[in-house]
């Protein structure tokens, strides 16, 4: 969010006004249970602030998301307006990763207050407060009424879904207005991603509310929060470790880039092109990820080739060529221990095989070459042709595709070439990671045949160059942030 567009400003102002309207009744009503509101609000605030205080041995991982069970417990325990009040301080203090922080905080507070109010209304309509059982924990006898158990799940679930839907709808609106995303894509995915976590948070909120109303009171309610908080923590931790793992894979790639400066960004682009081919061939999601990693790591064996050889300008002697041709085997040897790579390992070993058997290291032919290796081979050749190397200038995309089609059947599997041509014909070729000197890469769309004489050198308009070799920690951090939203 650079400069906030006027539409987004108006939208946020509206949301704040709506939230104020939700909260006001609690301030004017004399029956508001202020003690409970204060306890819950402070609890929520405390859960949000916990990430700032250093704990022995470990830190609260980034991207843990809002800790909503407290808010939802407020929804179940309090009148709607008071529940909206509970959400305010915690939402306001929650972590904000991007700027402008102040506006985002206000926005989050307004959003959560409104959602809590709507959820409280839905809960009330379904007779939820009565089903919760118990009474104020003042009496010392046996509890007044037990929670009406199978039934109380229904209003709680409806309230959690309502909460989730309101949050999602408001989020989608701000994405469409402030980040100028198309409305359809802004909403799609948001709902499915957040519904399940919100329902789990709702369940925890319900447990907390039940224990709060029981004779055991606040201490028991606090105990409910502990496992839930640890669960959220571990979830965020998982995403952080996954991000760290991806960063390690990138570091492997980066190590190749240090040695072979001309191929900077090549690995990521091959990964991307391989994924396009695989998707066109209708492979499953798991396999797409394998293909992507195979593409990214295909040249990792170049780490084993002396740097002087890789950087040599001019023709190589047969002896030097033989040394460079060892790199698929080096790469295979290197990643042998990485269990999850699976099929990708054979792709790394065989990505220089040719369909007619003239490739290396084993001279396999046709169907003998693993499928993923054939995919990566085409993607590799495609990117080699469309980017500048020490020995040749970059060629435009259509020329490269024509060249691939010419070699299909001899060097490349025709099915893979066809898939690449069709995929690029549909969506164009937008390399995600452009190289250091953007002129080396030609981000051409699938231009009509006459266009190839005038390639468009220049960076992608919406993606400024992100040189692989220069991403310090940004890459890993981006992952950790982007995936933590679902907690």
């Amino acid at each position, binding site marked *: 969010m650079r400069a906030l567009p006027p539409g987004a400003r108006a939208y946020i102002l509206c949301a704040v006004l709506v939230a104020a309207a939700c909260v006001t009744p609690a301030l004017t009503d004399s029956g508001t249970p202020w003690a409970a509101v204060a306890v819950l609000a402070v609890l929520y605030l405390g859960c949000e602030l916990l990430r700032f205080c250093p704990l022995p041995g470990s830190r609260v991982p980034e991207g843990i998301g809002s800790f909503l069970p407290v808010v939802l417990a407020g929804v179940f325990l309090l009148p709607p307006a008071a529940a909206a009040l509970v959400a305010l301080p915690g939402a306001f203090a929650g972590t904000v990763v991007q700027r402008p922080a102040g506006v985002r905080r206000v926005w989050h507070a307004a959003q959560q207050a409104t959602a809590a109010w709507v959820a409280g209304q839905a809960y009330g309509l379904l007779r939820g407060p009565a089903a919760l059982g118990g009474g104020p924990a003042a009496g010392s006898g046996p509890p007044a009424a037990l929670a009406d158990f199978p039934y109380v799940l229904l209003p709680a679930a409806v309230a959690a879904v309502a909460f989730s839907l309101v949050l999602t709808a408001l989020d989608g609106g701000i994405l469409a207005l402030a980040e100028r995303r198309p409305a359809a894509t802004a909403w799609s995915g948001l709902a499915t991603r957040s519904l399940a976590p919100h329902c789990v948070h709702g369940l925890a909120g319900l447990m907390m509310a039940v224990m709060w109303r029981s004779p055991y009171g606040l201490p028991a309610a606090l105990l409910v929060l502990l496992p839930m908080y640890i669960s959220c923590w571990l979830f965020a931790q998982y995403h952080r470790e996954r991000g760290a793992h991806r960063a390690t894979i990138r570091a492997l790639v980066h190590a190749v880039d240090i040695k072979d400066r001309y191929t900077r960004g090549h690995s990521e682009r091959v990964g991307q092109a391989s994924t396009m081919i695989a998707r066109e061939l209708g492979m499953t999601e798991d396999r797409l990820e394998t293909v992507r990693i195979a593409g990214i790591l295909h040249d990792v064996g170049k780490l084993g080739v002396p740097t002087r050889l890789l950087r040599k300008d001019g023709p190589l002697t047969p002896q030097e060529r033989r040394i460079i041709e060892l790199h698929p085997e080096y790469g295979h040897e290197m*990643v042998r221990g990485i269990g999850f790579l699976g099929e990708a390992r054979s792709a790394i070993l065989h990505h220089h095989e040719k369909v007619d058997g003239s490739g290396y290291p084993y001279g396999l032919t046709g169907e003998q070459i693993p499928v993923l290796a054939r995919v990566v081979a085409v993607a590799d050749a495609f990117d080699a042709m469309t980017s500048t190397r020490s020995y040749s200038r970059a060629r435009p995309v259509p020329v490269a595709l024509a060249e691939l089609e010419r070699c299909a059947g001899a060097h490349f599997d025709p099915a893979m070439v066809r898939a690449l041509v069709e995929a690029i014909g549909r969506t164009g070729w937008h390399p995600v990671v452009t190289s250091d000197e953007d002129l080396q890469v030609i981000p051409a769309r699938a231009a009509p045949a006459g266009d190839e004489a005038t390639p468009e050198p220049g960076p992608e308009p919406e993606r400024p160059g992100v040189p692989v070799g220069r991403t310090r920690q940004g890459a890993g951090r981006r992952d950790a942030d982007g995936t933590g939203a679902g907690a």
Partner: protein
Amino acid sequence: MRATPAVWTVRGAAAVLTVAGLAHTLWNGVAEPGAALAFGALITIGELARRDRQDPPGRHPAPLGSAGALAYALLGQNAGQPTHHGVLQIVAVAVAAALAGMVPHIARGRGPAVDHLSRRVLTVAFAAVCFQPLYNSGRLEERVGQGPYLVVFLLLLLGLTALCDAVLAAAPAGAATGRPYGPLLRDELRAQLGIGSAICATGVVMALGAAVAGLWALPVFSVPLLLTQLSFHRITAIRTTYRQTITSLARATEIAGCTRPGHSRRVAALSCAVGRELGLSERELTVLEYAALMHDIGQLSLVDPVPDGATAGLPGAEARRIAELGGEVARQTGVPAEVAVVVERQADPYRDQPTSARIVRTVNAYDDLVGGSRHPGGSLAALERLRLGTGHDYQPEVVECLARVLARGGRDRVVPVPPG
């Protein structure tokens, strides 16, 4: 775990309790079969959700099962009605349900997790013995009543149980590995802090929830813990691949001909052994291991490899430059920042270094000196060289610690880094 007398004592006690519990329950019949069945089912599900892989000792492989068993031990009321099950029935239900949950694991060819089960039996029996007689006699209700104070009492009780569990885990481990008892118990208690506290909290809340809402509380209250268990599995899986990837990255230097085959893995294993001897915590050991694996990564940036890859013989400025290059690569791998610092500082004089970097520096130099053909005297000559360098380069304590580790059998007894 090797079967030492301590292990057999734990197993024997658990076996006696189990036999007594089962016999008593079979003889007298089950009190409140509904509740017994529900809690038994919960424990079984918890066991089924356990993973086949052997978890490190001391960790809770089946948190939901443990929480269910504890909750049954602390169950005083069911939907407002007092319960009458005794300690022996609790043990019987916990064991029978856990055994039922283990059947698929055994069918898949895994041994029955005897130690895990006997620990469970003893801790549950401990909690039940502390709670049920007091509660059933009515004395507990006189003193603390049915209210917030009961929660506090249960928490204290579970704190004691967790301590008992940690002791049960640390004693056999200490007897088997010969490691000092203090750090082991500390590690155990630290491991309890996260997942253990979640288990205890869930156990208390489930027992109280069943008192308030009947057996419906069981499935509802087990959701957070079940999610925790799933997240735990996924974290373990990603950590395994993460370690494999880092090992691969470390091996890049060997394949590039910068270092001798196996150098980084040897340094990592020996560094961990030295670190353990010096009493580092688990987390510090992880940092140390990653740093040791990556300590030579900076050599990839050199246009011409160092002869033999032995950085120990290089002039100081050159070694520091390589270390800095390595720190830069390490920073990008997403490892904790401490790792990159260790890699970066490995060539500094030891007084400027953090402890882990001192260990890496010493062990790396040792491996370089032993491996190169320049020192036919081998290990002793290399140690002598290190001792000569203790004025400036190597910390004397670390060198002596290395000597002790080597004298004890050296590399054969160090905990292996998984081959990558």
